[in-house]
């Protein structure tokens, strides 16, 4: 469209409205409670008999519809002003168009009720996401990331297609209704094959280690509102698919499914956060945290699968609640963080944290939202991240008593890993927030940074509100999960989770453990008078003045002397040296004495072990093989004739 303003306003305005409507619809459905029948409908009539585009909104679908719409609404509002950055430079209309397409497709995906509709939506999602990622395709880095993403997601589509076809083979019909519990009809071998395929396929999309490589490449280079969508919504569709398939289609899980999912989740969580710590590219850091959080969600799912196997539907429902709760939480705070990062990048024109700093005073509101997001994602009370991780812990701990098999050790061990993850995440976000927003600006860009535009702030504020509400009122929220758990495990547990008229969240029973985030807030408010009382009583006469930083008497403090992101994570890099294998090179030039170097150049570089050991060799060998095969077509007509001749002779000899 020729008029970017109009285009942007139109597309993103419409998108936010549709998000709102979707949200209302989802809440309306979930509000009806678990007994309400699913909503059905035909989207488009098709003329090929075996292809149906029928939709069905059930508990699971509605939950994810809520997620998609919530995020879509907030981010669309944010984009109204964010897209202004492209006016004159790029075609904002294109951005808006693909953005809306992506939202639409994601919505269709969660309500799809036939294999055809699901797969088409799945592929279209990859396509639109690809177009959005490579929106700023002038940078080669962006192009490569886009291609990597698209290739990976095509591979995952392949796995998913195979998986669904295995189910289809057993059921003989393409509609999801015929697939429910089709696993019972399948031979165990095929079931396991299907499970593995689905785990691979949805795992790639969700970005679990070691299938995650596209994620830290693709999220940073996309426009920030798209990054938010990608990591808040798109990777969640992987979780959606896995949940739908494992709990509805494949039937009762064997032991190793749960163990696998739990293990995959644990590994993803730990490695994700460790790699995140090593990043000083703000958006890459957030991308790695998506991997971590997906891992935490997978822990919940894995625990649920294990409980299904051990025959504890209630506990299964409980861990499902934990997983789903973390899913929507991650959507909220990761969306928020990416939007914040977007605002920062938008005003400093760099993603490198080493060039930021001091932004808390230049863009205080953004800083505040980002801080909320950081506290939430670090699983610190009283925000939503803490609640969902608390639920996960509780589920894992109760798992210990759930059976007598040796495998129950898996629960507390992954719980310990979860603890490690949480602590590292806190460290990482101290770094992310501290280096980005605090201290002195490290570059002119940061020095001249400005507060984000109003609609961007509104968008962030919405997600902040979501984080706070989800954090303070878990008991009301888990009631919305009843339809989901009812559908997948046949249990409703929201009643057992809420105590004292919803003030306190209990893990199934009061004895097993309770927590109340809102209670903590109240406690804090009640205790707040103490420091003020002390101040009033003792220190009213004390004066306060601003002065240069003391720093043990160090004079003339410059930004160069501040702690850098790399420096901040140095100790952890040292501790996990074995994993990171940092490549570092130092060049120092000095005139007379090695102690007085005139010029030091230090380089430290960390590359993911999977890229080093797995993906690059794979790519290289594929190319090499193809070049070898290419020699068949070397241009000599006699060779070509020979091929035909040999074919003919072979056929004559063998066919007769």
């Amino acid at each position, binding site marked *: 469209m020729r008029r970017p303003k109009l285009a942007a306003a139109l597309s993103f305005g419409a998108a936010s409205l549709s998000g709102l409507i979707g949200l209302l619809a989802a809440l309306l459905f979930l509000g009806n409670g678990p007994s309400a029948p699913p909503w059905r409908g035909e989207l488009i009539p098709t003329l090929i008999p075996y292809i149906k585009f029928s939709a069905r909104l059930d508990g699971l679908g509605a939950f994810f519809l809520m997620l998609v719409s919530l995020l879509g609404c907030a981010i669309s509002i944010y984009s109204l002003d964010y897209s202004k950055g492209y006016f004159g430079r790029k075609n904002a209309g294109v951005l808006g168009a693909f953005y809306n397409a992506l939202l639409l497709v994601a919505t269709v995906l969660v309500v799809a009720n036939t294999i055809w509709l699901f797969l088409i939506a799945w592929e279209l999602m990859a396509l639109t996401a690809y177009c959005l990622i490579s929106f700023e395709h002038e940078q080669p880095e962006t192009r490569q990331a886009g291609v990597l993403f698209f290739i990976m997601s095509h591979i995952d589509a392949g796995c998913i297609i195979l998986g669904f076809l295995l189910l289809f083979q057993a059921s003989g019909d393409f509609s999801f209704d015929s697939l429910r519990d089709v696993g019972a009809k399948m031979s165990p071998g095929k079931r396991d094959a299907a499970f593995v395929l689905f785990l691979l396929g949805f795992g790639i999309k969700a970005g679990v280690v070691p299938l995650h490589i596209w994620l830290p490449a693709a999220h940073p280079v996309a426009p920030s509102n798209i990054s938010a969508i990608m990591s808040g919504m798109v990777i969640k569709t992987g979780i959606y698919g896995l949940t739908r398939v494992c709990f509805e289609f494949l039937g009762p899980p064997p032991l190793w499914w749960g163990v696998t999912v739990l293990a995959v989740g644990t590994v993803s969580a730990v490695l994700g956060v460790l790699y995140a710590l090593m990043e000083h590219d703000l958006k890459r850091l957030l991308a790695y945290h998506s991997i971590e959080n997906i891992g935490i969600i997978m822990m919940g799912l894995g625990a649920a699968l294990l409980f299904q196997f051990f025959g504890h539907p209630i506990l299964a429902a409980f861990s499902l609640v934990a997983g789903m709760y973390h899913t929507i939480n991650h959507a909220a705070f990761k969306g928020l963080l990416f939007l914040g990062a977007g605002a920062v990048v938008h005003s400093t024109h760099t993603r490198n944290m080493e060039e930021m700093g001091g932004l808390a005073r230049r863009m205080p509101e953004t800083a505040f939202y980002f801080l909320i997001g950081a506290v939430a994602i670090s699983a610190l009370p009283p925000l939503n991240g803490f609640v969902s991780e608390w639920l996960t812990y509780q589920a894992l701990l109760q798992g210990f008593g759930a059976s007598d098999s040796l495998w129950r050790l898996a629960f507390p061990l992954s719980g310990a890993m979860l603890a490690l993850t949480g602590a590292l995440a806190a460290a990482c976000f101290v770094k992310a927030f501290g280096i980005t927003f605090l201290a002195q600006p490290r570059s002119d860009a940061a020095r001249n940074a400005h507060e984000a535009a109003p609609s961007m702030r509104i968008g962030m504020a919405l997600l902040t509100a979501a984080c706070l509400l989800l954090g303070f009122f878990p008991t009301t929220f888990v009631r919305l999960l009843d339809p989901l758990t009812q559908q997948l495990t046949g249990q409703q547990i929201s009643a057992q989770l809420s105590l004292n008229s919803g003030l306190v969240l209990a893990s199934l029973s009061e004895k097993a453990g309770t927590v109340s985030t809102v209670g903590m807030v109240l406690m804090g408010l009640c205790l707040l008078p103490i420091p003020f009382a002390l101040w009033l009583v003792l220190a009213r006469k004390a004066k306060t003045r601003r002065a240069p930083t003391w720093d043990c008497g160090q004079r003339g403090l410059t930004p160069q002397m501040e702690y850098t992101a790399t420096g901040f994570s140095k100790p952890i890099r040292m501790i996990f040296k074995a994993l990171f294998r940092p490549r570092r090179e130092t060049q120092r030039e000095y005139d007379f004495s090695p102690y007085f170097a005139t010029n030091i150049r230090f380089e430290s570089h960390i590359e993911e072990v999977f890229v080093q050991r797995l993906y690059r060799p794979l790519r290289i060998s594929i190319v090499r093989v193809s070049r070898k095969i290419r020699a068949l077509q070397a241009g000599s007509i*006699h060779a070509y004739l020979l091929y035909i*001749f040999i074919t003919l002779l072979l056929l004559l000899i063998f066919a007769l």
Partner: protein
Amino acid sequence: MTPSVIPTASNLITLLASAMLVLQLLLAVQSMLITNIRLFALQSLLLAAIAGVVGYAYGAWHVLVLAVLTILGKVIFLPWRLEQLVRQIKIEQEIRPFVNMSASMLICGALTVLAHVVARPITSLERLGSNTLAVAIALVLTGFFLMINRRKAVTQVLAILTMENGVMLAAIALTTYGMPLVVEIGILFDVVVAVMVLGILVFRIRETFSSMDVSKLNELKW
């Protein structure tokens, strides 16, 4: 109802067919271009003769027509056209094949054996001359081998024409009355046109590449 088989005719056909095969083998070892062309002409003549025998013996007039057309087309016109081509663009006479004579002889022998093996189980066609099918297959395969083994464009054309002879042998001698006339005429016509087209191409190649060696045509790769 199929007509009664006339023994002399079938013996004659067998004889002529095997003669064609012998000529084919000679082609394989003959190194002079012009001689190659003449050998091909001779082979086509034998083919025409077979057609004549079939037509005469079974009173199938249209096979006679085919015989005449073969003589006109393959015995007179095509060889003349090819020799003219050779003279016009002064190709040197020597053919330098990839595989030397003795080896190619062996290979052709092997191919003939294979042809017989392949044709053995098929007995329903032994009415007009025995082993004609085997000979036809042998002609096709050896012609194919010649094509691979020749460097020059013209010689490849020649090879494909000998293959075509084998095919026509099958067309005439395997089926009691040959094929429907339309088809036969069409096939012959097509062959002639094909050679014309090839001639044009050979010309253009000659003038652009200033060589007739098709093994030099290898710019298009991968």
